[in-house]
């Protein structure tokens, strides 16, 4: 064994032992920026969400509004600010839904085992036997496009992945000696779940939340881009891209700007999750050969 292991730091907080890097700082700043805009957007935006401010459509940057106008002559800048709210809120709700279902069922399957685990796992497997976009399309095809259908569908589709992660975590931690000790003491399922397993799965679950949030943004804006997600006149980044694609050939950036904004949000989130997980990755034997 490596002799270093004896110096293990106390694992009191999931954030223990993390050092801020410039990428993580930048990513955090970008996320914070968007969060502030999402919270205070309506007071910052110069124009209304669906307000037509100019007769010129696809006005370039600087003319009309700060970032030009879109295909109907609305202010791209204002719609962008309203859009961040829709985009982030919807992603947050879907992620929360996916966690509510995924974590509960995943841990339940890992702890209860037996037929419950078999049945749930099989059902989830059948759902996962489908590309997630396809699954969402089928449901939207059946129920039509509304925000409720959208959020529930995407939330449920994403919950299959959360289920898999939670179930694996529950199984891995569930066989550890300290859980066995609690079981031998006669503790009930609820205690074992909330006091023994959950506190020890916080770090991977937080990382998973970040990844699912990113995925959820991509998923929702993808659907909006196909015209199957958020509907007009609401402002949503994915929808804005879809509306203004035609302008690309007229030299307008009205489609590229919201697309870039989505990328800034998701890339930042990914960088942050990567930084959070960094501590688990150490050197490998390969690097030692060169030293």
């Amino acid at each position: 064994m490596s002799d270093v292991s004896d110096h293990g730091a106390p694992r009191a907080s999931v954030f223990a032992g993390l050092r801020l890097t410039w990428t993580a700082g930048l990513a955090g700043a970008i996320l914070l920026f968007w969060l502030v805009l999402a919270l205070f957007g309506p007071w910052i935006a110069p124009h209304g969400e669906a307000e037509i401010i100019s007769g010129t459509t696809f006005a370039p940057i600087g003319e009309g509004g700060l970032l030009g106008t879109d295909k109907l002559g609305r202010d791209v800048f204002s719609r962008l600010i309203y859009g961040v709210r829709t985009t982030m809120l919807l992603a947050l709700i879907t992620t929360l839904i996916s966690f509510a279902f995924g974590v509960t069922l995943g841990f339940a399957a890992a702890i209860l085992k037996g037929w419950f685990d078999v049945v749930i796992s099989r059902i989830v497997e059948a759902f996962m036997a489908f590309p997630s976009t396809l699954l969402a399309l089928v449901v939207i095809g059946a129920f039509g496009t509304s925000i409720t259908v959208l959020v529930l569908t995407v939330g449920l589709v994403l919950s299959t992945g959360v289920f898999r992660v939670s179930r694996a975590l529950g199984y891995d931690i569930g066989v550890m000696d300290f859980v066995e000790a609690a079981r031998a003491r006669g503790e009930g399922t609820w205690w074992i779940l909330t006091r023994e397993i959950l506190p020890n799965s916080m770090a991977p679950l937080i990382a998973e939340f970040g990844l699912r949030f990113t995925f959820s943004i991509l998923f929702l804006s993808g659907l909006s881009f196909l015209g199957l997600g958020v509907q007009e006149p609401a402002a949503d980044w994915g929808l804005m891209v879809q509306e203004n694609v035609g302008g690309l050939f007229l030299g307008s950036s009205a489609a590229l700007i919201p697309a870039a904004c989505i990328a800034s949000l998701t890339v930042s989130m990914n960088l942050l999750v990567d930084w959070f997980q960094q501590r688990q990755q150490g050197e490998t034997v390969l690097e030692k050969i060169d030293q």
Partner: protein
Amino acid sequence: MYRIILTRLAQGLLTLLLASIIVFGATEILPGDVAAAILGQSRTEEALAALREEMGLNRPAIERYFDWLGGLLRGDLGTSLATDRPVADMIESRMWNTLRLALLAAAISVPLSLAFGLWSAMRAGGRVDKTLAMTTLALIAVPEFFIGLILMKVFAVELKWLSASANTRPYFDFWQNFRALALPVATLSFAVLAHMMRMTRSSVINIFTSPYMEMAALKGLPKRRLVIRHALPNALSPILTVIALNLSYMVSGVIIVETVFGVPGLTRLLVDAVTLRDIPLIQACAMIFGTVYILLNLLAYVLSIMANPRLRYPK
């Protein structure tokens, strides 16, 4: 070993059956039924009842499910509600466009991702590795339509080197085909390349934490040999799974790419069907993609079983 494979095959079939129930169920448990969807706003109660009778919607759902499943197995995919044409014909005319995109993207991204993944693993901790890690981390978070639009803006709108429309004609020569397909194929490849590369790298690096890799390193073997001869055979199973997963993930990518570049493909057909709520078409498309997905995963599983000496040479 063959028993494991057969079991898995049976499981695959079972999953497919479950998937068909989900597809049928999701599209059948409509608020209002297919007949109502066809007649739309202008329906009268009499017309609705007549159409229901004609379409057999008054029969129990289970009976209709088995009719539908039987049709699928015979190759009868039903009739489109929107166009009144046989679904099979509509799909056939579109299938090639989608398949060509996916195959080209796979042919480019799989070898590239393996090569870059292994290269990155060999340089673990070095500048190449760190740069690639950062780039791919960003790439997997970027929406496909952003990549597509940027490529289109730069190469089609500004530079005018390539075509923004992926519509090909039978009389196109190689360069015309290339100009039309380069951008959609590139967009699709980017989307899966980054992910596959990262997973290849981490599967290999993961193997490097095993004592047998330290042992191999202490034999004085060079990095290339360590990665390719020692780590790769053990990382094969996770890598195959990831490749299968990403190839099937391409379905989502293809949907976006076909929309961005106006490809008249199968996924575009599906999106239109969803917009028009053309149920038989949705069901048929969903089953096709589902089958491809399940087959790919099955193939990856069988290959990884065959690569495992523990199963190939039992005690």
